[in-house]
């Protein structure tokens, strides 16, 4: 019997790894992958609470999060392609046109 806290700690570790990846990496596509990691860790929290509370609502929420992740990946990668066409790079340090 694995206690609930272990699932939550695992989820927290994956979320922190994803967050540090978003802050430190400069490759736009790897930043997107780190965001996917963070979304997945939140999904794990939803499913863990759903299983421990005996309620399917959490799993329905995971379904919606996956839909949002799919939409985000499609639009985000289209933005990356459009940026690459303009600047010939996916380095986020060089894409600073909106920087104040």
């Amino acid at each position: 019997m694995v206690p609930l806290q272990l699932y939550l700690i695992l989820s927290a570790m994956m979320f922190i790894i994803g967050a540090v990846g978003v802050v430190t990496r400069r490759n736009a596509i790897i930043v997107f992958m780190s965001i996917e990691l963070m979304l997945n860790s939140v999904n794990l929290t939803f499913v863990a609470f759903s299983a421990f509370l005996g309620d399917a609502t959490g799993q329905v929420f995971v379904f919606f999060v996956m839909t949002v992740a799919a939409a985000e990946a499609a639009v985000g990668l289209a933005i990356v392609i459009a940026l690459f066409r303009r600047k010939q790079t996916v380095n986020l340090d060089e894409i600073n046109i909106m920087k104040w």
Partner: protein
Amino acid sequence: MTLEEILFYIFAFGGIASALLVVTRRNPIIAAIYIIVNFFCLAGIYLTLHAQFIAVVQILVYAGAIMVLFVFVIMLLNLGDERSLRDGFSWKKVVAGGFGFGVLMELVYIFMIPSGMQTMEMTRATDIGTVEAIGRVLFTRFLFPFEVTSLLLTAAIVGAIVLAKKNLD
């Protein structure tokens, strides 16, 4: 140790190791492969939580559809081992890692505070994660959010096509 615990520790270790490899690899293709490993480990953990439907959807949608899109874009843009993207040592990383570790310790501390959570037992009912149970909730209580989801996906498709068109103007 029961089989459930052994499986949990195997998948948890695999998940964390692959997540660390995703954010440290320089080559995006290697990172994409490791994030697929991470998705499979998560699907295994969902199975130990009796969430069969979510586990299958995780592999089909995430490892199948979304990651194919990522790999497709990486190969389309030909992002090999780009020298210009090499991240060397920088204080930014140390500070980010330190902050991350601090937040993690805080979260672990909060989870360990004695509360009702420690004594919570996993429900013996193994049928809340089946397609039937999820479908019943999805098409009754969550029917309106489900329909809004279709709108979101349509908007995403249109947005992606418009953004990736040859001339944005």
